[in-house]
């Protein structure tokens, strides 16, 4: 009883115990997977999500962004960028400018463009990948729930926000459809709603392009948390994409409704859309939980913004 409580050893011991237990659980899961047994994802509980959300990820992200806007001396550029290239497996052979000393800071290096012929756009298919990355998940939307990874879903309505952009879309609907958010989005009989998630790793080319020929009529910006979106976190936190800052572009393509959403993350907190000069993301003036709408339809422009398949659309930025 007279022994003094030592917080540091106690913290190290409990932390190590927790990590050890976690590793053991993962080891058990891997063994079950090897045996062909499907293991359900271990989701974070509400407390764990709330603890994660208390980390000032937006502030950290902005500080990270500021740091990466600082121009590096020419002699330091090559070693810093080489370390980044080596760590994240960047292929500089396909960059429009291969000379590392050309990039003034890491932010500029991160936004590097590709050589014109580095990514041929498929002409025979109507939907292409808008970015380089990894396919996290894809499929049909069922019961207003979308899967971020297999077995971990999020609400379609929470993700897109209330269905109030209809004035900008010339769509005929039935009265009874108004009970079901998913049905509201499907404009043509015999159609379904599909989704696809592409994860961009730190070493990937971070610009994104139009995935099809379509007309963008509306933008909705959700300021939010900036938790990591790596596949491990996407398997752990339910509704991750609904918590994080994101920009939803919605409109129409030849088969009806079409939308592209750029979701930010801790180190890649801001999103730029080239044709939208008003958009400001990861900005302290916006509070989490709200959203800001902007319509691209005006008296002078009833069609919105027309985009061709493969056209430059936007980019992610550090911080």
């Amino acid at each position: 009883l007279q022994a003094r409580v030592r917080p540091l050893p106690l913290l190290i011991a409990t932390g190590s115990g927790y990590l050890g237990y976690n590793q053991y659980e993962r080891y058990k899961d891997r063994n079950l997977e090897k045996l062909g047994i499907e293991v359900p994802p271990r989701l974070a509980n509400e407390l764990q999500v709330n603890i994660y959300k208390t980390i000032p990820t937006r502030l950290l992200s902005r500080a990270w962004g500021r740091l990466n806007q600082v121009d590096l001396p020419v002699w330091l550029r090559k070693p810093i960028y080489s370390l980044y290239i080596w760590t994240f497996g960047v292929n500089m052979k396909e960059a429009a400018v291969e000379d590392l000393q050309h990039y003034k800071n890491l932010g500029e290096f991160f936004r590097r463009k590709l050589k014109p012929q580095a990514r041929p756009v498929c002409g025979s298919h109507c939907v292409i990948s808008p970015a380089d990355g990894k396919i996290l998940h894809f499929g049909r939307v069922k019961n207003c729930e979308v899967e971020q990874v297999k077995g971990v879903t999020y609400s379609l309505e929470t993700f897109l926000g209330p269905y109030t952009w209809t004035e900008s879309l010339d769509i005929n609907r039935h009265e009874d459809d108004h009970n079901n958010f998913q049905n509201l989005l499907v404009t043509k009989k015999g159609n379904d709603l599909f989704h696809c998630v592409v994860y961009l790793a730190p070493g990937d080319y971070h610009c994104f392009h139009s995935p099809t020929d379509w007309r963008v009529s509306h933008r909705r910006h959700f300021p939010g948390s900036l938790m990591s979106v790596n596949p491990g976190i996407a398997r752990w936190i339910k509704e991750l994409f609904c918590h994080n800052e994101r920009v939803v572009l919605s409109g129409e393509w030849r088969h009806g409704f079409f939308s592209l959403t750029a979701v930010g993350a801790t180190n890649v907190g801001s999103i730029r859309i080239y044709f939208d000069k008003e958009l400001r993301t990861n900005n302290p003036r916006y509070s989490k939980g709200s959203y800001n709408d902007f319509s691209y339809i005006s008296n002078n422009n009833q069609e919105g913004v027309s985009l061709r398949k493969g056209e430059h659309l936007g980019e992610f930025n550090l911080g």
Partner: protein
Amino acid sequence: STIVLLFEAPQDFTFNLTAGQKIRFGEPLGTM
């Protein structure tokens, strides 16, 4: 960072993908 596409398409639309695969900008996602 992540891009999420949500779109309406005819029921015979099928993805030519596998979860976890690498993809590059410009490569097809699916066919009808």
